[in-house]
């Protein structure tokens, strides 16, 4: 059975078009869905996939420049040893780090919202979860930007190239202690995670393989005066290694090539891709089918994604409207559907934290598992209340608790922070006329149908539709903006709104 036969043209409609835009992008408005439907499956897939790695041409944040870290650290150390109050400088460093990461999150979220190549951003997010690295250990905004840039450049390209680039990425090297790997004392952290988490998966390598790989990756260093990767040739272990049936003076790139050629690698990546884009529990058949295409395309992501997004399997009943939106998907898609701006960075950062997906700070090396993990009673209530904030600007809690930044320092600074926070939390209610046509305001059934089509990807039960209609009828003759906003809030305060 050919699992990846193309979706028949007769099945291409608003629903399948919406499904494609939800999964390959961060959602779409009815107008965008209509436009996609008109373009047709093939053209739409090409439009999404065949984008350049530098599409969007967005410059890095202004502060994202390398610094001479060694000099800075030595200065701090000297001050400490002199007994000076270096703590103020150190604190300023930390505040700066905090500000930089906040701004980096804003920068990336804006790309997710506005990029002409949204699949590129979505794939970058996929790889960010795959090559999980956290600023909590890396402690530097520039390095986190640099890794993001590396991921984006290779997101739709060749997987082996991507892994090699990541092996030289300073943030990753710090996160997995690769720069501490020495011939005399090999550090196996990177070698193990390279196999377990990035390529072949657990059970497909031996402890001997890990030791051999650790030896192969010696010499990888970071130049602390330029914050760039450098190769310390003198520290490289050039001896013969035995790795997965290959023998020779293998280096890091050799190891990666060998790993990527393992069938287990194609299956590992296949499963991850399908879980991210399609459904939580892929069948073994689809995993094998995609794996086979990954190998056939020599691990080039663009053709693989073209096949996935064109396949009938992608549009199966099991897949459509059954994926719980990740926090990032939730934030971006909801903002789009409301035809409004993203909230201020500090609010979004807090929302990411409360929903369990903070950009640049995955909880651990395994990234985000997703699916049902996104939903607890607390996160669900938060999503409902956050929707209220997006719609009405209602900050949910007194004294701006909705967006409380962790106080950097007690005392006077805090009152300044509170004032700044209050400014950032303020948000105007949305303009409902952008998607509520005036003539329909007093026609509950039609209005509910129209808005359901916009906000839900799963069919509503009759009961649910009736509840929305009853709500509107209970408000008659009030068809004000406030009532419209309450209706939208009700729609978003449902289990089905969590699905894409």
């Amino acid at each position, binding site marked *: 059975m050919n699992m990846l036969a193309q979706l028949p043209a007769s099945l291409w409609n608003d629903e399948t078009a919406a499904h494609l835009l939800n999964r390959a992008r961060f959602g779409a408005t009815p107008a965008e869905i209509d436009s996609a439907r008109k373009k047709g499956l093939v053209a739409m897939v090409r439009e999404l996939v065949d984008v350049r790695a530098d599409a969007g041409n967005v410059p890095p944040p202004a502060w994202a420049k390398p610094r001479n870290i060694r000099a800075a650290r030595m200065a701090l150390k000297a001050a400490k040893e002199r007994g000076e109050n270096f*703590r103020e400088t150190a604190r300023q460093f930390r505040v700066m780090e905090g500000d930089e990461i906040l701004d980096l999150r804003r920068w990336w979220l804006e790309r997710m919202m506005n990029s002409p190549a949204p699949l590129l951003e979505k794939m970058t997010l996929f790889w960010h979860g795959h090559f999980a690295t956290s600023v909590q250990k890396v402690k530097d905004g520039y390095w986190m930007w640099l890794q993001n840039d590396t991921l984006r450049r290779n997101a739709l390209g060749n997987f082996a190239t991507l892994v090699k680039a990541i092996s030289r990425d300073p943030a990753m090297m710090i996160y997995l202690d690769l720069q501490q790997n020495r011939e005399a004392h090999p550090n196996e952290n990177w070698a193990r995670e390279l196999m377990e988490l990035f390529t072949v998966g657990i059970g497909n390598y031996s402890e001997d393989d890990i030791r051999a790989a650790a030896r192969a990756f010696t010499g990888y260093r970071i130049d602390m005066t330029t914050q760039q990767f450098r190769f310390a040739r003198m520290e490289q272990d050039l001896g013969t290694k035995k790795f997965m049936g290959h023998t020779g003076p293998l280096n890091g790139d050799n190891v990666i090539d060998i790993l990527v050629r393992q069938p287990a690698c194609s299956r590992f990546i296949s499963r991850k891709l399908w879980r991210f884009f399609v459904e939580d529990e892929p069948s073994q058949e689809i995993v094998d089918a995609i794996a086979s295409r990954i190998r056939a395309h020599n691990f080039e992501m663009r053709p693989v994604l073209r096949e996935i997004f064109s396949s009938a399997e992608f549009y199966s009943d099991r897949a459509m409207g059954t994926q719980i939106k990740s926090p990032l998907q939730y934030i971006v898609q909801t903002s789009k559907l409301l035809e409004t701006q993203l909230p201020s960075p500090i609010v979004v950062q807090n929302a990411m934290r409360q929903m369990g997906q903070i950009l640049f700070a995955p909880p651990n090396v395994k990234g985000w598992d997703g699916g049902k993990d996104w939903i607890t009673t607390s996160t669900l*209530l938060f999503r409902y209340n956050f929707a209220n904030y997006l719609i009405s600007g*209602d900050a949910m809690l007194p004294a701006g608790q909705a967006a409380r930044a962790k106080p950097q320092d007690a005392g006077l600074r805090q009152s300044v922070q509170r004032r700044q926070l209050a400014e950032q939390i303020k948000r105007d209610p949305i303009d409902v006329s952008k998607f509520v046509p005036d003539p329909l305001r007093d026609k509950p059934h039609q209005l509910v149908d129209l808005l359901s089509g916009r906000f839900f990807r799963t069919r509503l039960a009759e009961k649910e539709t009736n509840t929305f209609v009853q709500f509107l009828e209970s408000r008659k003759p009030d068809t004000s903006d*406030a009532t419209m906003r309450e209706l939208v809030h009700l729609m978003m305060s449902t289990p089905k709104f969590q699905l894409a």
Partner: protein
Amino acid sequence: MKTKNTLQTRREFLRTSMLGAAATWTLPVFLEKTFFALDAIAANAVTQTATGKDGTILVVLQLAGGNDGLNTVVPYADDAYHRARPRLALPDEQILTIDHHVGLNPKLAGLKSLYEEGHLAIVQGVGYPNPNRSHFRSTEIWQTASDADRNETHGWLGRYFDNCCSGADPTIGVAIGEEMPQAFAAKNSTGITFSRPEQFRWRASASNTGHMSTEEIFFRQLNGFDEENTPAATDGASIGTLPGTSKSDLSTLDFLQRTALDAQLSSDKILAIARKYKSTIPYPQGQLAASLNIIARMIAGGLTTRVYYASHGGFDTHAGQFNTHGRLMTELNDTIAAFVADLKQQGNFERVLLITFSEFGRRVAENANGGTDHGTAAPMFVLGGRVKPGLFGKHPSLTELDDGDLKFNTDFRSVYGTVLDSWLNTPSQIVLGRKFPSLAIL
């Protein structure tokens, strides 16, 4: 392919035979007419585990930042202590002595009284092999109870919930704060988090008048309080699950709907309790006291929670420690004293066990800024109406150090294991992955 377990409709529930005298709960008014139907075995298992109402309760208090153990449980008689800390060593005459070697920080008078009453166990030298001195990593190690060289995603309490309490009310674990602690992370995620009980609720768009606005009525209809085709509403002990079904086995939509219903019911229960129960015991100011006060009120109100979690920060005293740590100790002492008094007044002191932990202690020697840097082993407090009091474990040597840091004597998982086995009645081996030597604290 997993079979999808669909939730029974309310009508089916009413049709099936009802369980006989189950524990009586405080029911929100609009749920009074519903029943929950479980077969006897499941009911037994569920009431056994979920009945925080009459069963034992664990309160975990995290001191975040790395509390200085040496100035908390002070080895005042050891010259090395005074030599290493010319500025920070606490004067002998102020120490609240426990025995000839150690005593408590002068601000911990309340804990000293508890000790004398026989309600406080002090476990000395608690740590783990290959200690990590990073806040994040070491906190993760304590939360997941993993070995230092492994990465565990799920928390020790999460694994406890997975093993004992599947199908139980999500209020089985309650964390006071903004984020779910990693200790609660579980395969079948459960537990709720809030900073204030009034805030754990759905907020209608219209301004909140305190009464159920009409919008809220529609909201409830959309989230499971409906006659047909929705999960049956119950009081919350086990909401419509078939025995043994974990939430993770449900289809995605069923899972969402079940969670929505759980959220509503938990929220109602918590709000009802918060409105009804206020403490008459005065608590000190501050976030820590506010957290424990909420916990005390939830206990008073009969919330069926097994494990409460609270966290208090500020312990990362790298500089100017003397006054800061003194304030922290005062806050800790006064808060615990109030909490204990509150529980005693409620008659619930015997049911509660409170343990404190910190991600690490601090170095033996003070630094050049009147503070201390990240260290390793430190003491844990274990207190409650049924604790076996005393000093446990060995105090680490202040001279035979590990690169300037104390060597641990008791693995923290021994404390966890003892609590799991003897207080939560669950085999610690399953939760922790292996058996650790138990302590005679319970």
